[in-house]
């Protein structure tokens, strides 16, 4: 069976020849029509449409968007409500939001305005990744264009509804994408994620007010839900996995890139071997990380046992091959990994899996915010162990030690970063235990080197000198 064709909704106009990101082009292609439609609706009806659509967040956790919006009760709430667009796209392997921002910013802005109107938000922020300066400029220009057309500002389209959207450039850290870390960062502080309870964004979010944080793609989807109607949108995809999904494929495939499919209509095999043209250079597949770097890895040739609902409602065991795994939230969760942010990373047979893990662990050690103990210390430790194993300085005891360190992090931290950094370690070790054991056992063991200043302080600074000083306590 050939792979299904792409179904481009969010990416519809993106990369279309002659399509530009300015508002005139956007209006020519039917832009802001949904805003006009939505702003004539009752806000509660918009929320009802989103709930009916079954839209799940596209940022990584896949939380139902309508439910998230429903946490704020307009009858009880007396504080202002904020909406933040999380454009801090920093999960390795994910590059979809950037395309939208760069190539069709008005789609995001329209989706945001509709979402803001639905939730009675008067002030919204786009928190864009610090490393996207160009994207931030594009968004600011787009906001000004939208303001000139009275889509943003006071008395929008004569309805009396006021909305202001600000672009805020991120502080250059992965953790700024964690929603409470993002809120702290937006408030001007270090992006230390908040403890939950009590600081759930829907209750005590930005400036201790109810706050909605949605991903770029999710907000774009809202526009299309208004266009199609929630029920109609909900028919796309599979139950509980509705709509379309942008999938970013990177790594060892012939045609990496971003693709949009009806959720759950494409299998892993179809994606890699047909859509992406197979493994680069005709090599064999080794492993796939299916949902951004923190998703658990799956190994080529794996056969998964899953429970499947039968026609009569009973559950039956079923075996499926990796190639037949459907790419949606529930199917990937069923095989022990996740759809996450939609970043599919493919590794071919020539890849040294220990080096792949060392690379990921280094990333997470670098990006741990350092607020809570297990992640601050553990991520660094895992980096050191994985680096040793990968560079031939491992010992046999390192593999169980590494697993134990990862186990001591996951589920014990303030935010999901704990899982993000330990899931790769846990899954790499589980799926490729043979390779890790062999490489670790063949290693030399730790090699003692002269003390190097491990401070990331600039050379010549007092902190750097202090770190280099001979270690004499007191």
């Amino acid at each position, binding site marked *: 069976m050939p792979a299904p064709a792409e179904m481009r909704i969010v990416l519809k106009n993106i990369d279309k020849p002659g399509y530009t990101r300015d508002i005139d082009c956007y209006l020519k292609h039917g832009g802001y029509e949904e805003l006009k439609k939505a702003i004539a609706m009752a806000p509660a009806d918009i929320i009802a449409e989103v709930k009916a659509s079954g839209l799940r967040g596209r940022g990584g956790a896949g939380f139902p968007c309508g439910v998230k919006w429903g946490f704020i009760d307009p009858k009880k709430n007396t504080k202002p409500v904020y909406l933040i667009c999380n454009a801090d796209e920093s999960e390795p392997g994910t590059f979809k939001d950037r395309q939208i921002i760069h190539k069709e910013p008005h789609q995001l802005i329209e989706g945001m305005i509709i979402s803001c109107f639905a939730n009675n938000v008067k002030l919204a922020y786009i928190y864009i990744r610090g490393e996207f300066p160009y994207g931030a400029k594009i968004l600011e220009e787009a906001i000004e264009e939208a303001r000139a057309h009275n889509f943003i500002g006071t008395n929008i389209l004569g309805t009396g509804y006021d909305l202001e959207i600000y672009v805020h450039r991120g502080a250059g850290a992965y953790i700024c994408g964690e929603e409470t870390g993002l809120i702290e960062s937006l408030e001007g502080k270090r992006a230390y994620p908040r403890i939950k309870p009590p600081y759930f964004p829907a209750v005590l979010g930005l400036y201790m007010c109810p706050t909605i944080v949605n991903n770029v793609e999710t907000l774009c989807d809202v526009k299309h839900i208004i266009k199609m109607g929630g029920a109609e949108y909900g028919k796309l995809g599979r139950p509980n996995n509705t709509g379309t999904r942008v999938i970013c494929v990177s790594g060892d495939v012939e045609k990496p890139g971003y693709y949009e499919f009806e959720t759950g209509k494409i299998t892993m095999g179809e994606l890699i071997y047909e859509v992406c043209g197979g493994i680069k250079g005709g090599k064999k597949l080794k492993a796939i990380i299916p949902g951004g770097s923190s998703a658990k890895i799956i190994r080529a040739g794996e056969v998964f046992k899953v429970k499947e609902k039968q026609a009569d409602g009973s559950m039956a065991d079923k075996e499926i091959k990796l190639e037949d795994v459907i790419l949606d939230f529930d199917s990937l969760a069923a095989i022990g990994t996740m759809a996450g942010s939609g970043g599919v990373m493919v590794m071919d047979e020539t890849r040294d899996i220990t080096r792949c893990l060392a690379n990921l662990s280094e990333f997470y050690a670098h990006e741990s915010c350092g607020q809570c103990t297990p992640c601050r210390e553990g991520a660094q430790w895992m980096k050191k162990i994985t680096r040793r194993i990968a560079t031939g300085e491992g010992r046999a005891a390192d593999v169980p030690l590494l697993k134990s360190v990862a186990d001591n992090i996951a589920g014990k931290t303030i935010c999901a970063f704990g899982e993000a950094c330990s899931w790769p370690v846990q899954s790499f070790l589980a799926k490729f235990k043979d390779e890790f054991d062999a490489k670790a056992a063949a290693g030399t063991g730790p090699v003692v080197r002269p003390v190097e200043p491990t401070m990331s302080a600039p050379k010549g600074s007092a*902190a750097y000198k202090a770190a280099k000083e001979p270690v004499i306590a007191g």
Partner: protein
Amino acid sequence: MAFVKNAFQHDILPADTPLINVQIDGEWVQVPKGLNAIEAASRAGKFVPHYCYHPKLSIVGNCRMCLLEIGMPKMSPDRKPIIGEDGKPEIGWIPRPAIGCATQLADGMGIRTDSKLAKDCREGVMEFLLINHPLDCPICDQAGECKLQEYSVEYGQSESRFVEQKVHKPKKVDIGERIVLDDERCIMCSRCIRFAREFCKDDVLGFTQRGGFTTLAVHHDKRFDNNYSLNTVDICPVGALTSKDFRFKMRVWFLRETPSVCTGCATGCNVTVGAREQTVYRLTPRENEDVNSLWMCDQGRLNIGYFQGPDRLTEPLVRVGGSQVGAVWSNIYPQIQHKMLGLKGEQVAILASARATNEELFVIADVRRSLGGDTVLADIVPRPGKSDGVLQNADRNPNSAGTRIFGLNYKGQNIAKIKEAIDAGKIKALFCFHEDAVEAGIPAETLQKLDLLVLQHIVPGPTGALAHFVLAGAAWTEKRGSMINAAGRLQRLNKATACPGSAREDLEILLNLRTALTGGNSLHKVEEVFKAAASQYPIFEGLTFSRITDLGVQLDRSKLPRPQVVKGSVVAEPDFAEEFAPREMPVKSEGLPATTPRISA
């Protein structure tokens, strides 16, 4: 009523807080509603280890040491709790651990502090905290009172699995006038940061760098010189923040700890005096929610040098001709008695001190009565200062209230009268108890006209050289007695060290003087003196010295003599009402010495 208002108070709830039923380690107990799991567990006698959580600071939940297992009451489909076979609600345990500090317990919830999950979590956190810690315990000042050490014994592992290179960070960082920071020992609990921000309103501490390199630092062009900075040394669970005054001076396990009260001002912060042999090494605040909560000012804390300096009087002195020579106590009293023969009433004056204890003041007042009562001019030396709005009182005398009760406080107005009367030849004898007459404004030429000048003090001072008798007295850490703070709270001093040399406790000296001058010999011990005072002064009715306890007793403020406002008075003794007005924290303290001079043990 406490002097200081904490921004957070997780451990204390209003008395009328309703109780809820919670299950703690399998037992159902009742605890006040609104407590977090750490506090609730402690009410049930269970200790949950923690580093970052502090009952008086905001909750950040970053150390993860208090992870425990929590359970919610199981609910039936109609939202009613399911009752188990034992008649108690059933609990559904959550597989993911939660931090005790940020978990507020609700009715029917359960916590497990000793389950395998909780133990594994603690063991993991302990290991993480130690892998990059320098483990320099042998030369660390915190050793002996370090939470890393304590919890390592209780919850840690016996060996390290860490074979990598440790992260190196700045050491001996000078972050303030009185504090040194060792970043390698820091466990990033952020207590000091929150204390500076929330209590001192002096937000100068923070983290720099990221992840495993996170480094505590002071703002680049500021210093942590707040007058409450040393409290961070107390709340630092490890040896990262150390006091310049105390570090490397003494291992803490050698310190004998004595509960007492700081005498730096009229607040009377409750303190623990840490002493070894005859040397006081440090003061640390002692919890008293009615006075100082858990804190004290640096100025009070470091004020332990003046009585341990080289000029300390260690023996009584008698003037023989033009010089003073050391004497024996038993010879001194008859000599004073002899010199006092025939002197009384207007011929005698007394300079008492609001730094003296109630018992001492009672004896002084008693002697004064015998010598002629109000005709004997008496006064104290007032010490007006500026209230810092937190703990430091405008009245820098610790026991002004006591001097008012015993009728010895004339707000310093009598000092000038005493001077005039000496100059006029009316006053022949002057007794100075722990106050220096010259410093109080009676010049040496005047004092030289006296037939008898007796000074009882801990240092000779300018008056000492002129005195006929110098009685070597005791510092406040060397004696027992009671004092009354600005809020009318009666508190107790305890003896932490012995008097140096042949110096004696002031009460003993005063009682001997009393015997010599009045013949009275009915009183011997501080308890007896207090009892006598209680029988004569109704404010102490029903009290005994032992009933004061370590936390003090609030006296009936309406019955306390109020400070009199004298027109044109330079003395600013604050009214109680003024003292209890909301307080603002000043950003910077007055100049303070970094360390205090002291004689070695």
